[in-house]
């Protein structure tokens, strides 16, 4: 005999509403494929293009605490804003972001990244200049490459110095697709 689905669901929801979770996560279906989205009480802490939680749970536990459960409701605000974004009805996320324990430089880069507006692009060098380290374009690339919350923090808007798209965790095709969506071409 296995746990009835309703009992299982109720446990997950109660754990969340009683404030017992360090991290809640769920799969969010999007036009670009399923995303794994995780939130802490402070904000969104993970958006992953790989919806399988297997690889993510241990690093999440290390960064935010081991009380992690899949639960739909805490992820609901993120799901709603992502839905609106992909439907072209949202050009900025109101979701708070929880970057957790990150090196200071990466935090600085990701915080500045949030200021690159919808539909625009910035170069790696340009972002480096914005954080006061104009020669650190490569380090900026490294920091963006490890962005834990892509889409919400728009690393897809950062391009090479010649305007070429260069790397993206979700693949260049996806990067092009997100930029097309934001320019109203999708």
């Amino acid at each position, binding site marked *: *005999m*296995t*746990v*009835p689905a309703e*009992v*299982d669901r*109720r*446990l997950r929801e*109660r*754990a969340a509403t*009683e404030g*017992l*979770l360090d991290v809640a996560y769920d799969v969010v279906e999007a036009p670009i494929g399923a995303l794994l989205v995780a939130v802490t009480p402070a904000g969104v802490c993970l958006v992953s293009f790989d919806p399988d*939680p297997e690889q993510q*749970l*241990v690093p*999440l*536990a290390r960064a935010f*605490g*081991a*009380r*992690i*459960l*899949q639960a739909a409701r805490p992820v609901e605000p993120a799901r709603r804003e992502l839905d609106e974004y992909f439907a072209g009805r949202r050009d900025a996320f109101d979701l708070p972001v929880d970057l957790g324990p990150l090196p200071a430089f990466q935090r600085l880069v990701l915080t500045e990244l949030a200021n690159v507006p919808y539909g625009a692009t910035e170069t790696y060098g340009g972002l480096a200049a914005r954080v006061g380290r104009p020669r650190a374009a490569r380090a900026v690339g490294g920091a963006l490459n490890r962005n834990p919350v892509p889409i919400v923090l728009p690393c897809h808007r950062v391009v090479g110095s010649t305007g070429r798209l260069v790397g993206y965790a979700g693949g260049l095709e996806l990067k092009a697709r997100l930029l097309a969506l934001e320019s109203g071409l999708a």
Partner: protein
Amino acid sequence: MMEVVPVPPFETLYETHRDGVYRYLRRLAGAGEVDDAFQDTFLRALRAYPRLRSGEHLRAWLYTIATRVALDGKRRPAPRPVAQPPELPVLAGRPPHAELEHLTGGLPPTERAAVVLRYGYDLSYADIATALGSTEAAARQAASSGVRRLRERSVRP
């Protein structure tokens, strides 16, 4: 310093043990109480989780909590007579704990828990003592009088 086994993400522990804990509680607390006992067990486990320093013996730890929840429930006056539903047809190759939980139905709750935890789940008397909130000697005693009672019952015509 010795490397400690890290505490796993709670989801991993939960997925591994939820069905077993559910079956265990169904036997120990009864079909009418199992859903609430299940919630209580895992919510208690979540509350205590940040205090764990090592990921070892988590199964015993979880069954300890489940046992306490079930026994606490038994000590409360029953709001209504709880009849055990008829047993489901016996499946071939049931695991030993299921077999034991089935056989021990008539024992007093503490003896039943001690017998099931010892012989069905292979917990140590130290772990069972923690589960029952008693001493190791008392846990051993509860298991052996449970077994004696079962023997007496099985020889009775």
